[in-house]
């Protein structure tokens, strides 16, 4: 399993709790339009992810993130120090 896949798997677990009230949870689901999160939900989830991976994810780096896969891209990038 690549690091990207590991991170994506953990993100999907964090997103489980939004599944009930929304569409199907998949790696390319739109967090806001499909899964029904609002911008505050996304930022709050980010706090948990930062703690889990012990990294800082500045919210300005996720401005263009729409899906769990794109969020995993950003985290991989931060972890590798890019």
């Amino acid at each position, binding site marked *: 399993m690549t690091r990207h896949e590991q991170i994506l798997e953990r993100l999907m677990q964090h997103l489980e709790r939004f599944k009930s009230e929304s569409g199907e949870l998949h790696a390319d689901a739109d967090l806001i339009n499909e899964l029904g999160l609002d911008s505050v939900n996304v930022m709050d989830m*980010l*706090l948990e992810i930062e703690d889990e991976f*012990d990294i*800082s994810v500045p*919210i*300005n780096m996720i401005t263009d993130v729409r899906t769990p896969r794109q969020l995993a891209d950003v985290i991989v990038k931060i972890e590798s*120090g890019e």
Partner: protein
Amino acid sequence: MSLFDKFDRVRDASGSLALDSEPSPLGTRIDEVHSPTRGRIGNSEVILAGTNNYLGLTFDPDCIAAAHRALDEAGTGTTGSRMANGSYGSHRQLEQELAEFYGMPSAMVFSTGYMANLGLITSLLGPGDSVILDADCHASIYDACRMAGADVIRFRHNDAEDLDKRLRRLADRREDGLDNALIIVEGIYSMLGDRAPLTEIAEVKRRRGGYLLVDEAHSMGVMGATGRGLAEAVGVEADVDFIVGTFSKSLGAIGGFAVSRHRDLELVRFDSRPYIFTASPSPATIASVREALAIVAQRPQLRDQLWRNAERLYAGLQEQGFELGPTPGPVVAALVESPRQAIAFWHALIEHGVYVNMMLPPASPNGRALMRISLSAAHSDEQVDAILDAFATLGSMLDPSTPA
């Protein structure tokens, strides 16, 4: 796809919640304001209990007289920016008085509180700098951080340990420490009325480094022996680098300010676009603010009265079983399950002669709706009792088991 299609959600929500008919809890039209605590909304004479008019100075005779004089002597407006023709003697005098009030070398006056945050933060921070802000900070702070282009990191609301953890992570990946990091918190948070654990936050800042900005919009004039705010009240002013505040709450007018222990704040004047590219406050506004600032220092009994009112209201609502924000204070928030319940309750309160603010998520935290009451030193005991009576009469509407 038209430009207005993006408003579909707002349009739907506004229609389904009947927010488009008068009186409306959002953008309420207050038809007449008789005093700091009384007004008319439609056919209802109401007690105003949602105006942030903490010291009740909007109708203070000295403030009004000062504004009248300035209007007669200096005209209706400055018609220009602080950078061009909009810096009158009185603007500079107010800055000097603010600097003296805080015992700091430098102060800047802005046209609104929103612009004080925008003007200071966008100028202090740029790409490559970091800002670590409390998750519940006001929209003006978020907007400023985004405009500044800095890395924006949130910490869990009022959690100094969480701040410490995030500063540690930030320091770990930097060679030059936290010299270009700014921590931002508020004195009193506007929605739930809770306060920052500023003693603990100042301790983290001393240990880790970085600069500390405290937005005292809701705590200036309200807390501290001389009314300087939460930092004064808990004795950590020496650790605070910047204080931002507003003229539109305890000072009863409009405008904003920033003060700093760093004399270099003066340089922000030459860089800050929200300071440079807007007209300055009118002479009458500046005159009433100067008078109000003097009153904050001279009349501590206003603060005492405000806190008596706040504590009585909080205790009364708590006794009635309302779920409230964590501490008594000039902002008392009752949490409500659904927006529909909140809207119905707001309308019923108006009919019972009480105006409060209604807040819906995402403006309110944790996905809950709120009835937000703000107290004033000008509220009488009878008015506080009347607010409590209205909540007692209508409280069953907020029972979670009542269908909305």
